[in-house]
């Protein structure tokens, strides 16, 4: 914080003291007491965790699950990929929040004041970087614990160095996020190149898997994985040396970041203060949708609206489908995310041979993306725009709002089957059955998402009554995935039973697929009925 004079610091201190004195919020002592309590809780939980891990690893009773040497040898490259993905995610976070966050009143009253920016924001940056380091440290602790369980030798060094290394990496990522926060151009570049960056990470991981001699963890971006490489004995820099280098880099980057603080534009801080305030309000309600909307609004602010070259609709029956398709294509990454999640979910089910836990994970993930596809229906139910602009009512167009989600989900399912067939995961003879199943399940989950979308938002009173309120809120959030599971699992069990009884894949799938399509029709009718009833209420 060099450059700021003692006078600057005194003025900032005086303003802070004034605000604290006049504020009806917690006093400085309250904040300190609360902080100390949080540190105490984190220390106790971490201590218990480390003790439990050490005891379990050293204990004779628990045998580590057998893992092949090949899998262990691939671990360092996988951890490098994890570190790179975390870096991309952190920089992406810098486009709409970032490590320096002020409250909305501070943004409105303190930022326009003639106070030294570095003194005013220095503590915020340190707190923000601390949070990035904490998240990194938790990831490192998890990685170190898993590796220590498998390898069993040098557990303390492995857990300590991965935790410290990932913590330093988190801090480093925080400084990169600050650079993004400080520059519109960089923020726009990060937004536009994220898909390419993730593809590069995927390609690098694939390359590292087929060419083990590449040893990606020996490069600076792989230092966080060096302790893992040492633990599984594939060579590389000493874990303490790599971790020390990471800590030194993060320290230098933090010093530089403190110097750059004056470069953040007021409008950025104001925008982020609004976003952070709205995100905390939405997070308190478990409202992932509102958070996604805020994220999209932040992206639009930086890179504008994606142009969608769709022809104008001239016919009433294409009106809503055109509207929903335009909305879907305009949301950055919506189609790509749907396809990736559906392909990954199908891959998971295929790899684990239709096992129930894999099915549960897959259905929950796919129901999540299906929920995002029915966004236009949700908007239709929230604001009476349709009735203001047209002679139509929401109930008139409800079934049409399900068309684009159903077609998108079915198409993503077809892509998943194509990927499975081309990669050899799926046997050629099973492709027709897989196609039928993918289409039927896609349509069914889209219809289920439509029904879930007809619910009113959770009332705020639920938050005010801690005891039943939180449970009701959690129930509200998990109702969508539970409905999807209740619909898909019986059908999957029917298919598994038929296959076990010797039926051909197509015969085993045909009946349940027909049932799925009929149930989807029923759900569409139920959705329309509920929308009509909402209007009557």
């Amino acid at each position, binding site marked *: 914080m060099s450059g700021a004079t003692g006078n600057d610091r005194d003025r900032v201190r005086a303003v802070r003291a004034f605000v604290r004195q006049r504020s009806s919020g917690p006093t400085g002592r309250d904040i300190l007491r609360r902080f100390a309590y949080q540190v105490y809780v984190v220390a106790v939980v971490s201590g218990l965790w480390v003790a439990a891990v050490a005891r379990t690893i050293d204990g004779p009773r628990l045998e580590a699950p057998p893992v092949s040497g090949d899998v262990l040898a691939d671990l360092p490259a996988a951890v490098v990929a994890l570190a790179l993905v975390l870096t991309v995610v952190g920089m992406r976070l810098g486009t709409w929040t970032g490590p320096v966050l002020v409250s909305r009143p501070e943004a409105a009253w303190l930022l326009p004041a003639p106070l030294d920016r570095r003194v005013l924001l220095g503590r915020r940056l340190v707190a923000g970087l601390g949070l990035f380091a904490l998240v990194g440290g938790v990831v490192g602790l998890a990685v170190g614990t898993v590796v220590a369980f498998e390898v069993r030798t040098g557990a303390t060094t492995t857990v300590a160095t991965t935790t410290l290394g990932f913590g330093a990496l988190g801090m480093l990522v925080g400084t990169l996020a600050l650079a993004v926060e400080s520059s519109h151009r960089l923020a726009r570049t990060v937004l536009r190149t994220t898909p390419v960056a993730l593809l590069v990470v995927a390609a690098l991981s694939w390359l590292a898997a087929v060419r083990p001699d590449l040893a990606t963890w020996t490069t600076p971006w792989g230092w966080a994985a060096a302790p893992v490489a040492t633990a599984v004995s594939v060579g590389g820099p000493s874990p303490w040396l790599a971790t020390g280098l990471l800590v030194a880099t993060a320290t230098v980057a933090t010093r530089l970041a403190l110097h750059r603080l004056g470069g953040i534009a007021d409008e950025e801080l104001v925008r982020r203060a609004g976003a952070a305030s709205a995100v905390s309000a939405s997070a308190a309600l478990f409202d992932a949708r509102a958070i996604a909307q805020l994220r999209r609004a932040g992206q639009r602010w930086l890179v504008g*609206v994606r142009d969608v070259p769709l022809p104008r609709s001239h016919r*009433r029956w294409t009106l809503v489908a055109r509207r929903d398709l335009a909305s879907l294509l305009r949301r950055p990454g919506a189609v790509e995310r749907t396809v990736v999640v559906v392909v990954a979910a199908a891959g998971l089910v295929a790899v684990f041979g239709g096992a129930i836990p894999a099915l549960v994970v897959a259905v929950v993930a796919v129901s999540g993306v299906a929920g995002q596809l029915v966004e236009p229906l949700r908007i239709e139910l929230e604001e009476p725009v349709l009735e203001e602009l047209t002679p139509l009512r929401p109930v008139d167009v409800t079934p049409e709002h399900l068309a684009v989600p159903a077609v998108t989900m079915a198409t993503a399912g077809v892509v998943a089957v194509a990927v499975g067939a081309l990669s050899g995961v799926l046997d050629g003879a099973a492709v027709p059955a897989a196609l039928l199943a993918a289409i039927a399940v896609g349509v069914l989950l889209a219809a289920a998402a439509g029904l879930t979308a007809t619910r009113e938002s959770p009332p705020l009173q639920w938050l005010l009554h801690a005891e039943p309120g939180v449970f009701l809120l959690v129930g509200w959030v998990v109702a969508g995935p539970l409905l999807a599971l209740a619909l898909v699992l019986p059908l999957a069990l029917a298919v598994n039973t038929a296959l076990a009884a010797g039926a051909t894949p197509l015969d085993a799938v045909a009946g349940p697929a027909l049932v799925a399509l009929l149930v989807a029709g029923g759900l569409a009718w139920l959705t329309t009925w509920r929308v009509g009833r909402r209007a009557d209420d």
Partner: protein
Amino acid sequence: MATPPALRLDAVGREFGGVVALERLDMVVPRGSCAMVVGRNGSGKTTTLRLAAGRLDPTSGIVEVAGRRTTTEGGRRHVRRSVAFALDAPLFYPDLTVEDHLGFVATAHGLGDEGVVRTDDLLDRFDLSRRRGFLPDQLSSGMRQKLQLACLFLRPSDLVLLDEPTRALDPHTRGVLWETLQARRDAGTAVVFSTHQLDFPADLVDQVVVLHDGVVADHGGFAEVMDGAAVTELGLT
């Protein structure tokens, strides 16, 4: 049988939780005519327009659009088809662009190719052409109001209702609005609007209703009301 007026309010009253917002309002707006509702804030202007648009049901009296009561199912259907209403706070789809909104309205009203021509004309007239790819939250309040007006004038309607339509509009666009309203009125559409801005052409308005605390303070021809005591006493001129 005589053609019913575009809008008729017969002894209409409306209460909100015991608070009287409007009391015994009588008003008849023939086709091809224009009525203006003026009054201070909270005088009942918005309530009057919402009642006329069927968005509110009267607690007493009758509201008829083209001879059909707005409280019946058939009346509501007729209102949805034939009444265009510009709200004081415009509502839009957050995920549709300016051009999408106009295309949506044109298709929903079955305008076909005519809709394309009129859309382009309205985008030009309301200075929205360069913002056709913008989402509503990227527009200023004035531009949002222009978009609402463009959507309103695109759709076919027998009765146009506008609540404070000049709010946030620049003088040029106010001129465009008055011209467009005059053309719609001359083509046979009935127009009712509320405003505080009295810079419209004198021959646009055929009748004026002055409201004060939900009660009619004056009602008559434009010149007659403007020369009367009520508008001066209420500080509306």
